């Protein structure tokens, strides 16, 4: 079975599960061209996934996999057309036909789904140029961690700084704080950068009060303080795949494996 079992959030960009538009798909506030793009992209992605699945079952691919011939495997995989870049280019073209938040939607879609540094950098530059005050920048930021390897670091830093200085929206500001802190906190960060990241996280936590973003900002601390070996497991409450509500504590008295997973 050829499947990816371990990866980081940054790598998610390369995986088909992200070839979706998340919560924004059926939004009636979008221009028709946007819904059309999203729907057609979903169909093209599904087709591409089927083709990839079929490839993995071919003798040629299996032989290469057996011989650990990564070059051939890569070449065979490359033959399966991924629709991302084509659709992202289309999104960029659509963006130029509209204005305001509609344009933001297309630019964000292109950056998030394009799997291309060039496209993502272009989209971020356009957002920085014309849309620093849009409250819809959150849509980009929700996916921004994934774009860490796609958007140039200098550009990301400049963009986040501009947003922090310009946005009138607390939630957008909080996202920019959080993402800038993540950027500063990368491996080998200086003490000065770490201290600055701390301040940004504190500010972001205040600005994002009452939203899900607070949990994300507080997550490293939550893990350190609540999720260590020997500590009582915090409860989880939510819905299963069928929409039935349940809690982790419903299963108290049994040995539990809690497995964060996905098929992707």
């Amino acid at each position, binding site marked *: *079975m050829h*499947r990816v*079992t*371990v*990866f*980081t*959030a940054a790598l*998610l960009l390369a995986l088909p*599960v*992200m070839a*979706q538009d*998340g*919560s924004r798909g059926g939004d009636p506030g979008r221009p028709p061209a946007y819904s059309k793009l999203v729907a057609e992209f979903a169909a093209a992605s599904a087709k591409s996934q089927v083709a990839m699945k079929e490839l993995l079952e071919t003798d040629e691919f299996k032989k290469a996999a057996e011989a650990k011939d990564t070059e051939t495997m890569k070449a065979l995989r490359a033959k399966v057309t991924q629709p991302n870049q084509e659709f992202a280019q289309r999104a960029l073209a659509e963006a130029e036909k509209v204005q305001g938040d509609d344009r933001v939607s297309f630019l964000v879609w292109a950056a998030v789904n394009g799997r291309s540094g060039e496209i993502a950098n272009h989209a971020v530059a356009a957002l920085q140029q014309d849309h620093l005050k849009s409250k819809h920048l959150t849509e980009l930021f*929700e*996916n921004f961690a994934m774009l860490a390897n796609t958007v140039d670091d200098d550009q990301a830093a400049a963009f986040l700084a501009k947003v922090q200085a310009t946005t009138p929206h607390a939630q957008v500001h909080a996202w920019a704080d959080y993402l800038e802190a993540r950027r500063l906190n990368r491996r080998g960060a200086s003490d000065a950068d770490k201290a600055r990241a701390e301040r940004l996280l504190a500010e972001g936590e205040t600005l994002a009060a009452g939203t*899900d973003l607070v*949990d*994300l900002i507080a*997550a*490293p601390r*939550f*893990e350190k303080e609540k*999720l*260590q*070996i*020997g*500590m*009582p*497991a915090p409860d*989880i409450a*939510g*819905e*299963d*795949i069928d929409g039935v509500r*349940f809690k*982790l*504590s419903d*299963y*108290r*008295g*049994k*040995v*539990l*494996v*809690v*497995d*964060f*997973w*996905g*098929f*992707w």
Partner: protein
Amino acid sequence: MIPHERSLVEKLKDKPFTLIGVNSDTDKALIRREAKEKGVTWRSFWCGDKGTGGPIPAKWNVNGWPTIYVIDDQGVIRFKGVKGQRMEDAVETLLAEMAQRK
């Protein structure tokens, strides 16, 4: 990963053990299809249409998948980040502990 979990769930089906997933796929139809195809029988929280960025993995600071916690019958976290055989060993250890207390 799934084959190992499937065999563990099957093997321990008569023991006081439950595997709870936190699924970060965004497409419910895909989850149902794949679950059927791959014999996934265990219950999962669904993280919503934000997938890996959904509220449960966000709160638990999950940045890599799979991430695994093993919790004993008292509700205490006993193992973190154990996969494959190590996950199985962890579960067996805790089940043995429970049996001894009786």
